[in-house]
């Protein structure tokens, strides 16, 4: 068809579109009498208007890609679920009562509405799902199943709970105060577990606490972690967005202080729930008095619960009756211990509240058992009186006032003596553990090649120790934990991260059981575990662990302590790997600025600054990094010679900076200088020296000098004097690059041998989905490609991409790199 024909056809076609067949025939005769060859075409055009568009599916496909399937959901069933009715809306998503057809069981099905399927809300929805899945507790809703509906909405299902919200249920069932306290205690227990896993609920309120009725009794069940924050990501909720339920939100939450939200925020929520359950209405701020400050402040105390009861007016009688007591009795409890516990949980300042749910739980137990509560106003009379009441039966039998007093004194002192003795014993045991641990570590450190730099002869010894530890220390968990820590440190020194990881995990578990989650020993074990997680590429675990420790240390030692800053920088490195570099930079800056003042040793201060610089470089903030690097170099040179290890480290950074600025010649020059100095000062097998050599080789490859790179790498790798086993991970990095270099030099056969070996070792040391392991695998597949085995290579590339996707996440630089390479 010529353009002229097209124009002609088009004009006539348009004129005839609205006409009937007869008129169209006339039109053709009129306009195209001399072009009979176009008649059929034109008739076809008109006829085709009645036909379906055969290309509609293509358009559908394109829309699906560009719009992420943004259509409203057709109501209906999917998979094995039959949606019955909408039962509510959570923090995110709609909840349906649904029937699981195979089992004919009712479930609660939570779905993210399609109209709300933005990346952020999908992420939050799956966060919630993940949060719930991580908690295994009878008082937290359990996820049965999760997935994606055919329309593309994420969903998950939980048990369908029949009892209704906790406040309604308690009123309906006329639960007395003690029964109500039991339910609240259950929620505390569930939350404590969540907190232990780094999850904060942030929206504890009656609508999120349901009661499940069963033969064994009623059980409170916490649902809806829709506003939970478990990676503690300030970016996750929009800045300033206040999520939660008024009346149940802690002041720090109302103030929109993202950073201030921690486990004590949930303590507040539980306190508010308790308030409502006891006093019959949610807490509200106390009326302002002249001295209580600005009305703007959210940090205001709440109305005391007994006054809330008074405010119910005539309803107060009902409230009391449904709690199994008279109005006066209820008021007395609210003005007394129950009220104290509530008030302590609802303290406006987090630091004045119960510090965690376990502490609140202990006091609830005290209330139930009639023991004195922690929340008591200070003063001895309360405790004595309470103890007397607690032992009322024995005392009543004694009969006389004198005897009563004597007994009270005897009981109290007996209790005190018992406590002191137990404490002394515990302390002695702890000293023993510390001594043992120190001993073990001193023995094992000799086989830590990082320190000894010599042949490892202790490997078998360690393996034997590990195999036996459990038997030897059976029944002595504190000793076993100490040994686990020592073994962990030793394995890590050998570069055997997976083994180290297992030991630290075991130590952490043991200490948790022995000393609780926030004891120093427990936190130390978790810190170590987080480090090995980091090394293994389990960045999420690492992040959660460091974050937990960081928060716990904050409560223990204050925000500026060495411990907080150190775990903060660990957290930063994990975050950096999770592509949250901005947060990481903030944390590292805090560490770099604060560690010196916190009394940390200079090496650690330098390490923090070094890591900050490195991170800035890797974030592409090269100007800032350059300034910081120059500053450090000037400072280090002022205080020492230009070839001290520290100065060399900073000079190495300058090379790295040049590398990232793609000034390859400059980078090669700097690295070569540093390498010469490090060779001389530290020796050729020192990890720092190996690293500079490694980077120089990489830069030589980029400069298209693979032969030079090959010489550099072979020089150390083939050196018979190289100590076996030392710096295992680093040596693998060099050998990986050797494989890469051989690939460039088209020495395919040798490249394959080298890379296969590196791959096997990396898998063994770091696991299958570690970023380093994946890179080796990728390079190996490139070798296959070069050898002509396209199909095998291609399949592996895709497999790697899939695994990177799953284990590193969509946004990891490596994932993106693979994605790009595959296109």
């Amino acid at each position, binding site marked *: *068809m010529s*353009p002229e024909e*097209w*124009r002609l056809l*088009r004009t006539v*076609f*348009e004129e005839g579109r609205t006409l009937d067949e007869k008129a169209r025939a006339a039109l053709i005769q009129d306009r195209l009498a001399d072009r009979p060859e176009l008649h059929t075409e034109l008739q*076809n*055009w008109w006829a085709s*208007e009645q*036909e379906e568009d*055969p*290309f509609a*599916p*293509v*358009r*559908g*496909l*394109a829309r*699906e*890609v*560009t*719009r*992420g399937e*943004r259509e409203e959901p057709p109501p209906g069933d999917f998979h094995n679920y039959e949606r019955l009715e909408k039962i509510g809306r959570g923090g995110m998503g709609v909840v349906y009562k649904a029937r699981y057809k195979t089992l004919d069981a009712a479930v609660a099905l939570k779905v993210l509405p399609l109209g709300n399927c*933005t990346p952020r809300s*999908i992420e939050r929805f799956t966060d919630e799902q993940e949060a719930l899945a991580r908690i295994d507790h009878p008082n937290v809703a359990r996820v049965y199943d999760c997935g994606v*509906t*055919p329309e*593309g909405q994420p969903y998950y299902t939980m048990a369908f709970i029949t009892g209704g919200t906790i406040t309604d249920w308690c009123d309906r069932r006329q639960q007395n105060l003690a029964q109500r306290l039991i339910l609240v205690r259950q929620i505390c227990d569930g939350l404590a577990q969540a907190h232990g896993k780094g999850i904060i609920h942030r929206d504890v309120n009656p609508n999120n606490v349901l009661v499940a009725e069963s033969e064994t009794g009623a059980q409170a069940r916490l649902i809806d972690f829709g506003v939970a924050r478990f990676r503690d990501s300030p970016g996750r909720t929009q800045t300033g967005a206040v999520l939660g339920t008024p009346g149940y939100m802690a002041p720090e939450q109302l103030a929109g202080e993202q950073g201030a939200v921690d486990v004590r925020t949930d303590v507040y929520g539980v306190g508010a729930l308790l308030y409502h359950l006891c006093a019959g209405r949610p807490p509200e701020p106390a009326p302002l008095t002249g001295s209580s400050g600005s009305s703007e402040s959210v940090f205001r105390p709440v109305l005391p619960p007994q006054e809330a009861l008074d405010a119910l007016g005539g309803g107060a009688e009902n409230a009391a009756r449904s709690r199994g007591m008279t109005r006066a009795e209820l008021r007395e409890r609210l003005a007394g211990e129950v009220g104290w516990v509530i008030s302590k949980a609802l303290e406006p300042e987090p630091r004045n509240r119960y510090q965690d749910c376990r502490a609140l739980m202990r006091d609830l137990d005290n209330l139930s058992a009639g023991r004195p509560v922690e929340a008591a106003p200070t003063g001895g009379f309360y405790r004595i009186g309470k103890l007397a009441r607690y032992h009322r039966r024995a005392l009543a039998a004694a009969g006389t006032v004198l005897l009563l007093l004597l007994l009270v004194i005897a009981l109290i002192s007996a209790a005190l003596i018992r406590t002191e003795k137990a404490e002394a014993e515990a302390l002695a045991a702890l000293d023993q553990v510390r001594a043992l641990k120190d001993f073990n570590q001193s023995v094992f450190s000799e086989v830590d090649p990082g320190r000894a730099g010599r042949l490892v002869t202790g490997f078998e010894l360690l393996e034997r120790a590990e195999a036996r530890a459990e038997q030897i220390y059976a029944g002595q968990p504190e000793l076993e934990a100490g040994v686990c820590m020592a073994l962990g440190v030793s394995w890590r020194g050998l570069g055997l991260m997976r083994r180290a990881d297992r030991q630290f995990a075991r130590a952490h578990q043991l200490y948790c059981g022995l000393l609780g989650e926030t004891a*120093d020993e427990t936190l*130390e074990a978790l*810190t*170590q575990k987080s*480090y090995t997680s980091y090394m293994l590429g389990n960045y999420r675990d690492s992040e959660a662990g460091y974050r937990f420790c960081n928060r716990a240390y904050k409560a223990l030692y204050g925000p500026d302590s*060495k*411990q907080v800053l150190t*775990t903060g*920088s*660990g957290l*930063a*490195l994990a975050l950096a790997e999770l592509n949250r570099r901005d947060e990481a930079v903030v944390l590292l800056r805090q560490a770099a600025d604060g560690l010196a003042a916190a009394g940390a040793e200079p*090496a650690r201060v330098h390490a923090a600054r*070094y890591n900050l610089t490195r991170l800035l470089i890797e974030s*592409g903030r090269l100007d800032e990094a350059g300034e910081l690097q120059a500053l450090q170099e000037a400072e280090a040179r002022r205080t020492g010679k230009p070839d001290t290890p520290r100065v060399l*480290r900073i000079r190495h950074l300058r090379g790295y900076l040049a590398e990232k600025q793609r000034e390859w010649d400059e980078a090669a020059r700097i690295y070569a200088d540093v390498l010469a100095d490090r060779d001389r000062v530290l020796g050729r097998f020192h*990890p*720092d020296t190996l*690293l500079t050599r490694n*980077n120089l080789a*990489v830069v030589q*490859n980029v400069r298209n000098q693979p032969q030079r790179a090959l010489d550099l790498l072979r020089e150390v790798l083939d050196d018979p004097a190289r100590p076996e086993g030392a710096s295992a991970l680093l040596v693998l*990095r060099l050998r990986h690059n050797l494989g*890469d270099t051989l690939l460039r030099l088209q020495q395919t056969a040798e490249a394959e041998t080298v890379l296969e070996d590196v791959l096997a070792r990396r898998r063994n040391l770091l696991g299958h989905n570690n970023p*380093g392991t994946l890179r080796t695998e990728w390079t190996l597949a490139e070798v296959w490609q070069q050898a002509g085995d396209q199909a095998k290579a291609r399949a592996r590339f*895709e497999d790697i991409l*899939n695994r990177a996707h799953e284990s590193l996440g969509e946004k990891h630089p490596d994932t993106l*790199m693979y*994605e790009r390479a595959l*296109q």
Partner: protein
Amino acid sequence: MLLLLPNLAFETLMDQNPSQIKIDAPITQLLQQWRQGDDAALARLTPVVYDELNRLAAAFMRKERRNHTLRTGDLVHEAFLRLVNERDRDFESRAHFFALSSKVMKDFLIQYARARKAQKRGGGEPVLTLGPADQPMQDAADERIEFLVHSLDALAKLDQRAARALELHYYVGMSVAEIAEVLGVASATVKRDMASGRSWLKTRYREGRV
């Protein structure tokens, strides 16, 4: 206290060539800047949206392979719409932007069709199991993609504007109003262009001419 590390052991550098991986600036932010008069923002925006499209397409392909549903949002679409709403901006850059976008999508569609063909020839993994209702649609799509692409290229030689309108319609999934905005013509014109173009396409398809 045995608080060791993080310390220098973290000096982990790139294994391989330090390939430059760009961190995508948020599309909305760039759009904001552009609206506020920063013309350079459009230049920066184009590759970002282009990348985002590529990423979406890649994610879509993975979904196909892994039988997962697409978990991406409507960033690109949002960018499109916002751009469409930029009435004051010059036509040239906008048209350029959409030309680019539809080219990306065209490439994606071709790739997609080829991948599906390869799969049908017995290339390993089972054909995706979307919902039963989706299946025929998907099959129909990949049969026709190549035909559509060739035909629209041919149409562009006869009537560029009509071809562009259909590209935006089929490749990007835009509505008539959106296309009208982008091409800077009235909706009625787009409708007419599309009607002729589509009739021509259908006729061609029925007769099996490529």
